[in-house]
C-alpha cells in the first residue's frame, strides 16, 4: 500500500515546518510515522512496558512543546530519538538509582572486551528455538548489558542509526559510540554463544 498520508506531504522537512507553524495534522502525521519506532526503542532501553509507554508519550509531548527549538539541522527522527533516550534513561535511574551508569560516565575499558568463550555456532542457530524462546533469549541478553552499552547497541544495530546519528542522539563522541558498540556486540556474542554453539563442540573448536 502506498504511504498515503492525511496531509499528503511526503517530504519530512516540509512536514516539520508545517507542524511548527501550528498545523496539527502535520504533527499527528509525524507521530504516526515514528510512534512505533520510539516505543520499540523505549522498550529496549527500559525493558518495561509501562515505562516504555510513559517514554513514548513524554517524547511526543516534549517534541510538540519544543518544536520551535528544532532547527532542522538534524533529522526530526534523530531529534526525537535524543528526547526518547533521555526519557528512557531517566526511567532507568528512577528504577535502580544506585546501579545505573550514566551515559557520560567514563567506562572501564579493560575486561569488557575479553573473549572468554570461542565456539562455532550452529548453521542456523535461531531455528532451534521457537519464536518466543528466541525473542526471550535476545531480549534477556540485551537486558544484561549496562545501559550505556545497551543504548548504543539498540540505536546502532536494532534501530539502524549511523554512528554519527547515534553520537548525536546520545550526546557522546563518535569514538565513544564505536568503543561501546564493540563491547556491546562482544558481550552479546559471548552470551548468545551459550545458546547457539554447535553441539558436541566445546571451547577450542578449531584447535
Amino acid at each position, binding site marked *: 500500500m502506498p504511504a498515503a498520508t492525511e496531509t499528503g506531504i511526503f517530504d519530512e522537512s516540509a512536514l516539520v515546518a508545517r*507542524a*511548527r507553524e*501550528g498545523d*496539527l495534522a502535520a*504533527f*499527528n502525521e509525524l*507521530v504516526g510515522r515514528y*510512534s*512505533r519506532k520510539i*516505543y*520499540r526503542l523505549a*522498550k*529496549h532501553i527500559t525493558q518495561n512496558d509501562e515505562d516504555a*509507554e510513559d517514554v*513514548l*508519550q513524554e517524547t*511526543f*509531548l516534549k517534541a*510538540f*512543546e*519544543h*518544536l*520551535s*527549538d528544532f532547527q532542522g539541522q538534524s533529522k526530526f527522527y534523530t531529534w526525537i530519538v535524543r528526547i526518547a533516550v533521555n526519557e528512557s534513561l531517566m526511567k532507568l535511574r528512577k528504577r535502580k538509582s544506585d546501579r545505573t551508569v550514566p551515559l557520560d560516565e567514563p567506562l572501564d575499558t579493560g575486561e569488557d*572486551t575479553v*573473549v572468554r568463550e*570461542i*565456539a*562455532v*555456532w550452529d548453521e542456523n*542457530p*535461531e531455528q532451534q528455538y521457537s*519464536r518466543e524462546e*528466541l*525473542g526471550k533469549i*535476545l531480549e534477556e541478553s*540485551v537486558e544484561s548489558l549496562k545501559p550505556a552499552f545497551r543504548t548504543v547497541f539498540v540505536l546502532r*544495530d*536494532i534501530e*539502524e542509526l549511523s*554512528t554519527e546519528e547515534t553520537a548525536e542522539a546520545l550526546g557522546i563522541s563518535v569514538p565513544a559510540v*564505536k568503543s561501546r*558498540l*564493540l563491547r556491546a*556486540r*562482544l558481550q*552479546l*556474542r559471548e552470551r*548468545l*554463544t551459550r545458546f*547457539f554453539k554447535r553441539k558436541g563442540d566445546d571451547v577450542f*573448536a*578449531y*584447535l
Partner: protein
Amino acid sequence: MLTCKEFMQELNDYLDETADVELRRRIEVHITECPNCFVILDTTRKTIQVYKGMQPQVLPAEVQARLLKAVERKMAARKPGISS
C-alpha cells in the same frame, strides 16, 4: 601482520564495512591464519544478524490510542512551539 589485539580493535569497522581495502585485506589474512579470530568474527556477525532479524516490536493499539489522546489534549491546550 595484524595481531589478535589489533584485529579486535578493527572488528567493528570490518563488520560495518567501513574498513578500507588495505585493512580488509589484512583482516582477511589474519582470519585465515587464526581460527579463534575467525570464530569471533563469524559469531559476532551472526549476533548482529540475529538481532536485525528480530520480530519487530508491535505498538499495542491501546498504547497508540492513549498516545494520540495525550497529544490531542496537549494540542488543545496550546499551539506547538509557542513558549509560555
